[in-house]
């Protein structure tokens, strides 16, 4: 049973440029969250954001994989989930295709990830959850911006 969220985006920049944005703590802080990331396998770091109910605002991470400018993975624990986030970069013409996957969802969340995004219970969820269903139906997510186009599916 697939329990992976997958997002894809195409950026009009070289993989080396996207790689810097993924591995420079200041850059990461701009697009993701404030952090103390270091590009070193085994380095433990945190993301810190505003707390919300059930989430203290801290994500605990460890760098698991680092292969510039192609692959980066770190663990992602916080807010009741214990997952792995993985980025894979591929040159496509002068562009970079970024595939980001978050895997390892367990319990009810894992079930929802696989069933809803897998389309298994589309009708049950779709008719009662118009907003969410509009986003996940067909397993696609279209971002509000023209680029990049992101997908959210399993």
């Amino acid at each position, binding site marked *: 049973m697939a329990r992976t969220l997958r997002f894809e985006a195409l950026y009009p920049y070289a993989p080396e440029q996207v790689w810097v*944005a993924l591995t420079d703590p200041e850059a990461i802080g701009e697009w993701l969250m404030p952090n103390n990331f270091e590009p070193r396998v085994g380095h433990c770091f945190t993301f810190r954001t505003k707390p919300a109910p059930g989430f203290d605002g801290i994500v605990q991470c460890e760098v698991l994989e680092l292969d510039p400018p192609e692959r980066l993975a770190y663990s992602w624990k916080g807010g009741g989930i214990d997952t792995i986030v993985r980025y894979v970069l591929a040159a496509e013409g002068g562009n970079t295709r970024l595939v980001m996957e978050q895997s390892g969802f367990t319990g009810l969340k894992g079930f929802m990830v696989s069933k809803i995004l897998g389309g298994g219970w589309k009708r049950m969820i779709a008719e009662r959850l118009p907003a969410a269903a509009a986003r996940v139906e067909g397993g696609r997510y279209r971002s509000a911006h023209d680029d990049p186009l*992101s997908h*959210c599916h399993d």
Partner: protein
Amino acid sequence: MLMDMDERAENEVFRALADPTRRALLSMLDEEAQSVSALTGRFEMSQPAISQHLKVLREAGLVSERKAGRNRIYALDPEPLRHAAEWLERHCDFWATRLDNLGRHLREKHGKDA
């Protein structure tokens, strides 16, 4: 972004969903509310066995029950699923927004053309 539903309630829902017969029951109740005898007719299983599965679903809050004459009619209550689906939607939104931010960050740093 990552708000959680009560963990115990969540585990109960997950346990209820883990069984294929109970998932089939939910799909049938999603079509229409039904009595236990109507449901039993669609399985090769005894009525007490189906009743036991319905009890688990009821305790997880996924199914509600009402009396109609001598029958009990069971209906799907999607609330716990809605909760988890909303969590999932927020979570997907979180990453989609962040990847948009990444595109904006690259544009600001390197200009429109790579």
